[in-house]
C-alpha cells in the first residue's frame, strides 16, 4: 500500500459498496447509477475470458456517464415487460484497496451473484471480481465515495441466461 487509507475513507468506501449492492438487489437502477461520479464515470462488465485474452469486447460497455444513464433508461423504460423477471443477491468481499493519490483509490473485491427467477429456485448467476477506481468527495462529515470506474470481470465462461441488470 502506497498510502494508508484513513478510517473516514474506509467507511465511505464500504458505504459505497453497500449502496451498490442495495441498489441492484432492489432493482433500483437510478440508485445504481447514483453510485457513479456524476460528471465522468464508466462501467464495464466483461467476461474473464475476454479480459484474460486482452479482447476488449464486453457484455456492457458504458465508457461515459451518458452510457450509464442510457442503460438505466433501457432497463426501466425500453425493456419493461419483455423479460422474465429475476431477483439478485450480491455478496462482495473486499480484496485490496490502495491509494491512487489525490483522493482516489484503486480497489478490488470478489463478488457472487445469486439469482432467483420468479417462480423458480435460487442459483448462482456468476461470481467475479470488481476492479474499481473510487473517488472520495467532500470533507469531514460529508465524505462520500463514488465510482469513477467500475470493471466487473465475471468468471462464467458461459453465462447461464440472458442478462438484464448490471453485475
Amino acid at each position, binding site marked *: 500500500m502506497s498510502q494508508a487509507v484513513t478510517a473516514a475513507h474506509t467507511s465511505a468506501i464500504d458505504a459505497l459498496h453497500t449502496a451498490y449492492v442495495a441498489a441492484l438487489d432492489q432493482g433500483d437502477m437510478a440508485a445504481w447509477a447514483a453510485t457513479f461520479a456524476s460528471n465522468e464515470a464508466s462501467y464495464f462488465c466483461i467476461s474473464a475470458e475476454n479480459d484474460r485474452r486482452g479482447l476488449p469486447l464486453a457484455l456492457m460497455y458504458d465508457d461515459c456517464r451518458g452510457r450509464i444513464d442510457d442503460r438505466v433508461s433501457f432497463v426501466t*423504460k425500453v*425493456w419493461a415487460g419483455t*423479460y422474465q423477471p429475476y431477483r439478485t443477491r450480491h455478496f462482495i468481499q473486499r480484496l485490496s484497496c490502495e491509494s491512487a493519490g489525490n483522493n482516489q483509490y484503486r480497489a478490488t473485491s470478489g463478488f457472487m451473484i445469486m439469482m432467483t427467477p420468479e417462480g423458480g429456485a435460487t442459483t448462482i448467476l456468476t461470481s467475479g471480481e470488481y476492479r474499481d477506481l473510487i473517488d472520495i468527495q467532500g470533507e469531514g462529515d460529508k465524505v462520500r465515495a463514488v465510482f469513477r470506474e467500475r470493471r466487473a470481470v465475471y468468471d462464467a465462461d458461459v453465462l447461464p441466461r440472458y442478462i438484464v441488470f448490471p453485475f
Partner: protein
Amino acid sequence: MSAHSTHAYTGEAPKVWPAKVNQIPKEIFGDAALFEEELKKIFYGDTWHVVGHTAEVPNIGDFKTFDLGRVPLLIARGKDNQVRVFFNSCTHRGNQLETSVSGNRKEFECPYHRWLFSLDGTLAACPGSKEFAPDFKQENFGLVEVKTDQYLGLILVTMGKNTPPLKEWLGESALPTLTALLGGDGRLKLLGYQKVRYASNWKGYNDNDGYHAPLLHTGFRLLNWQGGKGFQRMTENGHVIFEAELKPATGNGFLKDPSLIAFKGSNPERGSVITQLFPMTVMTKHMDVINLRFAIARSHEVTEVHYAYFAHEDDSEELVQHRIRQSSNLLGPCGMVSMEDAAIFQRIHIGNQTPGFAEFQKGVTSLTEIPTDVKQNDETGNLPRWEHYRKVMGFKREGEQ
C-alpha cells in the same frame, strides 16, 4: 428428460406433420428422444456446420475448442498456417486432448500416456512404443481430422458421408450477402465474445433469431429507428438471407449518448445483413457490428450461443473503437435491441410444451405451397427451413403416402 414431454418419440414411426404448411407441431420442441435422432440425422449428418472463423486463431499454434452436438472439436492453426479441425480426442485411449477454451501451443500433449501431437495432427512421439501391438505404426495414429472447408475464413465441418460441396450447399444466391457480412474478403480481427446458454430447444432458438419482429422492440420506436428497404430470400436447403439498407437512427433525443448508434462504415446500402444457415447459425452485420453466432445444440432444452464479434483488418483505430462499444452494447444477450429476443427464446420454449401448433401468419398466401417469394418482414421466410428440416428428419405430411 423434460417433465413437459407429451409423447416419447422412439425414432421409429415418423411424426406426422400437418397438411397446412404454416403449422409447426409444438411437440418437436420438448422431446429428448427426438434430439438424439436430430444429432444423427442433422448434426452428424450430411449438413455443414459453422464452428468458427480463422480470425479466432490468427497465429501459428492458436487453437480453440468447440462442440458439434456432443462431439468435442479442436481447431488449430498449423506451422503451415493452415487451420485444421480435429476430433478433440487422443488417438490412444480416447482421452480429451485439449481442455482449454482457447490458447496457443507448440504441440498438444495428452497427459495420460504422454502421446505428443504436432499442430498439424501428426503423432510426433509416443513413449514406450516398442511394446505396442505388432501392427502399431506411428504414422497411422495422427489426430483424426473432421472434414472441413472454409468460406472467407468461416470454418465449417461435416461428419456426413454425402454432404454436398460447401459452395453448392451454401447456394449461389446466399454468397453475396455472406460475403458482405464477412467484410468483403473475410479479413477479420477478433474483438471478443459474449457466451450464454438459453433454456431453449435449438429449433426454437433458431426460429426466432435472425427473423425480426419489429413490434417486440420498443427501442426501435423510441429511437425513431426504421428499417430500410430490403429483401428476404430463402434457399431450398433451409438458409435465409436478409438484406436491408441502413437508415441511421438519430436517437430521437432519447439517448444521452447517441454516438453509440452512429454508423461509421462505408456501405449503408447493405447496412443490415443477416445470413442464417441451416441448421442453427445466425450471422449478422448490423451498422458497424460484425457478429457471428456460433451455436451448440446441447440438449432438447439447452442451446449455447457464442456471440463472436469482429472488426476488419483494414479498420482505422477509431472505427475499431467504435465497433467495440457498439458491438458490446447492441446485439448480444444483453444488447439494447436484442435482450428482448433472448427473452423470447426462453419463453417460446416454455410455451412450446403445450399441445398444438406454432402458427405462421404474416405473409402466408397458400396453405399447401411452401413460399419461395416473401417480403422483408414476413414470418414465412422460416417455412422453407422447416420444410427442409421435415424432409431431413423423414417426417411425412398428413395425407402423404
